[in-house]
């Protein structure tokens, strides 16, 4: 992968040249290798086939030749002259040869046959082993093949087989002393009217057979035919080209690492392969076996000669590969140039454009991929230019709108804050200024009370002066009705005072400056709950304070908020069931949400709007309070940008959640 990445970093033209070279090299080398191998294989196969054909032809020819000689000998054995001379000889006492008529006839016949067939010699052999007629009359003539000096020759063996097995026998090839040459014999029994008379034999010149076998036609410069026979554990070879006059005196021990083909042939195998010959030179050879002669035959050719043409082909192949390689590089460079130069040009244009010259355009006008790319680039540049202008125009308009909008918002905000201040000061004024007359009202009510006591004392002094009924009426007025009315006034004034005090408090709370400190919410909640411990125990209620964090805020504000919420929760518990209140808090990035959940009466949906209104209280009249709690909480929360929300289900319970934003020190 790394290499591939580095390759991708190379300029296109190098990549093209490199790819071309690699592709061409691979295909060329593999193709030429394939073709070369094919050529080599077919060369070898052809050569081997050629050698095999020669091998088969030679074997066939020699066997045909031998078969013809066997037939000649068969005819020879069945000629009446042959039988006649044998009958005559066998009849003689002591088997002595005497020239007579039949002898002359057979002599003539033998000479004639020998001349006609090119046979080296012909023999007539009596039943007792005597050679009674011979064409050449060599040293073997008139000797006995069973007891004489030549009883162990190939002729004697063939004769014995013919006599014993009553059939024609071809001897293997061997040196024959009387002829002082290598020879092959074919012996046939002579049988007449169920009587074995003797045998006839013919002698084949090894040279005539070697001529058939050893022809080097079609065997090239180094081709050769090697014949071999087995005697004991040695192979006797006749290399028929390199030692043409050989008499099979070249020996190779069987099992030696030499002349493998002839050794294999002598075991009766027909095959072909690469091997070394009797000279220990690598050859390609085909071999076979001639059963008549018990002879192995190898047709071979030096491997070097065969490989010469293969090597020539190899050299040619390398030259062609090199030539094509150079051509490929040249074409590759041309091709690379036509592809990479427009790319370079386009790259330059693009770089200039990227540097900010938006007016830069490509001049390439070809119709190929690069041309299309250049056209596309130009079109793209034009389009970008147009879009750019549009964007600038729209931006300007947008800016104007924004400014206008901002101004309006500012104006409205100013108006609003003025109104807000007005409301705040109004509340303050109302609550503050309304208290003065109320103080007067209170004072004078006290004065009235005092006056009433005076009246009552005065009245006691004049009590007796009055009639009983009047006295009773007076007493009722002074002691009951007036104090009753006074009581109402006092109550109303106090109530009003309280309300004004509440409003005043509310308006002050809204403007209070925060004093920040670290507050442990858990601790705070616990101390607030502690206040109600007695009540909670009575109602078997409990408050579950969750894992609350420490926050940085104004202690009074937090205590007010938490206190009010806890108060409320406890107040509105349903006496029918055990109260369960939980206090929890969730920290968020922007602040903290503190939730107080109860299982009290809950809030009816119709009252949802009025929950945070001042002097509003729940419907449960049994509960004491001035209806300011939640209003305070809301005011305190809002004063620092927080909020309060709730969720409730009637008769099941309510959750109030106060969100207090984080307060940065510098804001204070």
């Amino acid at each position, binding site marked *: 992968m790394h290499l591939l990445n580095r390759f991708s970093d190379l300029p296109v033209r190098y990549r093209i040249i490199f790819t071309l070279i690699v592709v061409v090299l691979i295909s060329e080398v593999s193709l030429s290798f394939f073709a070369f191998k094919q050529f080599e294989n077919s060369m070898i196969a052809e050569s081997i086939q050629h050698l*095999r054909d020669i091998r088969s032809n030679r074997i066939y020819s020699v066997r*045909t030749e031998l078969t013809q000689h066997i037939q000649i000998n068969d005819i020879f054995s069945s000629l009446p002259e042959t039988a006649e001379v044998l009958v005559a000889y066998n009849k003689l006492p002591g088997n002595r040869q005497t020239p007579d008529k039949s002898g002359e006839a057979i002599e003539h016949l033998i000479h004639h046959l020998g001349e006609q067939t090119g046979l080296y010699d012909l023999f007539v052999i009596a039943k007792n082993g005597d050679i009674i007629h011979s064409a050449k009359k060599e040293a073997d003539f008139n000797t006995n093949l069973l007891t004489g000096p030549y009883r162990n020759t190939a002729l004697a063996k063939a004769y014995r087989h013919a006599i014993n097995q009553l*059939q024609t026998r*071809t001897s293997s090839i061997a040196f024959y002393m009387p002829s002082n040459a290598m020879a092959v014999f074919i012996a046939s029994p002579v049988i007449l009217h169920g*009587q074995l008379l003797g045998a006839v034999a013919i002698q084949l010149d090894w040279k005539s057979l070697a001529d058939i076998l050893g022809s080097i036609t079609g065997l090239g410069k180094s081709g050769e035919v090697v014949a071999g026979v087995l005697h004991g554990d040695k192979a006797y070879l006749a290399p028929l080209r390199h030692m043409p006059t050989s008499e099979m005196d070249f020996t190779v021990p069987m099992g030696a690492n030499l002349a493998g083909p002839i050794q294999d042939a002598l075991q*009766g195998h027909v095959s072909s392969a690469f091997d070394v010959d009797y000279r220990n030179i690598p050859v390609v050879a085909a071999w076979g076996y001639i059963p008549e002669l*018990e002879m192995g035959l190898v047709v071979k050719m030096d491997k070097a000669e065969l490989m010469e043409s293969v090597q020539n082909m190899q050299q040619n192949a390398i030259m062609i590969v090199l030539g094509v390689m150079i051509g490929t590089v040249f074409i590759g460079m041309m091709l690379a140039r036509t592809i990479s130069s427009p790319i370079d040009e386009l790259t330059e244009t693009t770089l200039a454009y990227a540097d900010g010259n938006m007016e830069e355009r490509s001049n390439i006008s070809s119709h190929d991929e690069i041309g299309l790319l250049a*056209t596309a680039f130009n079109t793209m540049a034009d389009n970008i230019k147009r879009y750019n202008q549009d964007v600038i125009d729209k931006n300007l308009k947008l800016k104007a709108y924004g400014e206008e909008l901002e101004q309006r918002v500012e104006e409205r905000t100013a108006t609003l804050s003025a109104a807000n201040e007005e409301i705040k000061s109004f509340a303050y004024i109302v609550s503050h200024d309304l208290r003065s007359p109320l103080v007067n009202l209170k004072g004078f009510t006290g004065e009235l009370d005092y006056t009433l006591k005076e009246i009552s004392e005065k009245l006691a002094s004049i009590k007796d002066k009055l009639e009983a009924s009047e006295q009773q009426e007076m007493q009722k007025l002074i002691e009951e009705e007036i104090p009753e009315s006074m009581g109402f006034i006092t109550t109303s004034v106090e109530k009003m005072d309280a309300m004004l005090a509440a409003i005043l408090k509310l308006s002050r709370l809204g403007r209070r400056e925060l004093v920040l400190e670290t507050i442990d919410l858990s601790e705070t909640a616990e101390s607030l709950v502690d206040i109600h411990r007695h009540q909670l125990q009575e109602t078997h209620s409990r408050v579950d304070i969750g894992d609350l964090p420490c926050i940085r805020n104004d202690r009074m504000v937090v205590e007010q908020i938490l206190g009010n919420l806890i108060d409320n929760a406890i107040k509105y518990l349903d006496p029918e069931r055990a109260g369960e209140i939980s206090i929890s808090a969730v920290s968020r990035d922007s602040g903290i949400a503190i939730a107080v959940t109860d299982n009290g009466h809950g809030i009816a949906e119709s009252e949802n709007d009025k929950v945070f209104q001042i002097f509003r209280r729940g419907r449960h009249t049994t509960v004491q309070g001035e209806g300011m709690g939640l209003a305070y909480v809301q005011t305190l929360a809002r004063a620092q940008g927080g909020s309060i929300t709730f969720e409730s289900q009637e008769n099941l319970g309510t959750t109030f959640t106060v969100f207090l934003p984080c307060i940065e020190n510098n804001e204070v």
Partner: protein
Amino acid sequence: MLNNAMPLLQRAGLKQTYKYLLLPVMGCALLLLLTACQNADKEPIKIGILHSLTGTMAISEKPVVDATLLAIEEINAKGGLLGRQLKPIIADGKSDPATFASEARRLIKDEQVAVTFGCWTSASRKTVKPVIEQYDSLLFYPLQYEGFEQSPHIIYTGNTPNQQIIPAISWSNKHLGKRLFLIGSDYIFPRVANWIIKKQASILDMEIVGEIYQPLGSSDFDSVAREIISAKPDVVINTINGDSNISFFKALFEADITSSDMPVLSFSISENELAVIPEDHSRGHYAAWSYFQSIDSHGNREFVRAFKTHFGKQRLISDPMEAAYIGVHLWAKAAQLINSIDAKSIIFRLKTITMEAPQGIVAIDLNNHHLWKQARIGKIVAQHQFETVWQSESSIQPMTHPLGILQDDAEHYINSLFDLWGQQWSARPQEE
């Protein structure tokens, strides 16, 4: 403009990708094509095997089927022939010559076999011969037989008389004696074999002291044993075929005819037949073949080991089995050399082929399609085996017409038998 340009560009990009893909794809295609060319024509070559799997000859012929299969398997294990596997098609001749002929026709016509290996009795071969010749097909016949036959379409891998009978009689003449008693089954091979033996006996001044033929499958040899005792031969020449031999040797044993007094020289008893004859009955007698399982040569040890590995340790191997095994290998060698399974070309090429068989070097004769083979005489020893007591110096050239017997004389004799038996190659079985 932009909308038009984009697809064009995409297409150009795809073209580039194709270009890079094209070379490897083409390379693969080329390779596939090459391998496809090499793998063409790979269906197996059908080889017919035609022997009796049922009937009286089954016991002799089944092992020959196994030997044929062994050679086929050996060739297949080395990658087959010409790159194709050999597929044996086995047909049952049912010990009936007519069935042999019809099965041979089926193998050649319907199964299209390239070559047929089969037949045992001369009777079956003589009915199959015209079928093989009619279709220009090729038959390898694995049995020794009486000779006087040649067909350009049959390769005879068994012995001819001059490779079995004549050397055996010659050997017998030297080692056992001159008085011969001839006993055989009444069909073509024993009749012709004895016809030759009588001619040879006359040449060698031997005497025929008795000649009896029993129908194939006969089990009554008590009278034969009595006749042998009264004739007092030096040697009994046995050409009885099949399981009759069990009764024959039993009768001899019970008549106290021992191998030392009157040895039996058999021409149709191999290791497989010995397996069913009690050892006491057969020990010390002789048989003539080219091959014995006991031959101690590298080639034969390999052959015996291979056969036993395939078919079991207790199995015995006989001459006809070896001949069948040789036949398959010779055929395959010739096909290999000419790179074809055409019957005619193979027959021609076979003439230059030799091979190192378990018995020694074998070659096909140039003239008569028979095999150059060894001749051996074995003495029956324990465990159904033979001990070689004589063997020829080298392979003997096959002769279809031994002892200078003329074809006309032989044909005349053979045809007279054929007529005598009512246009059959064997005498009719005795009526019960």
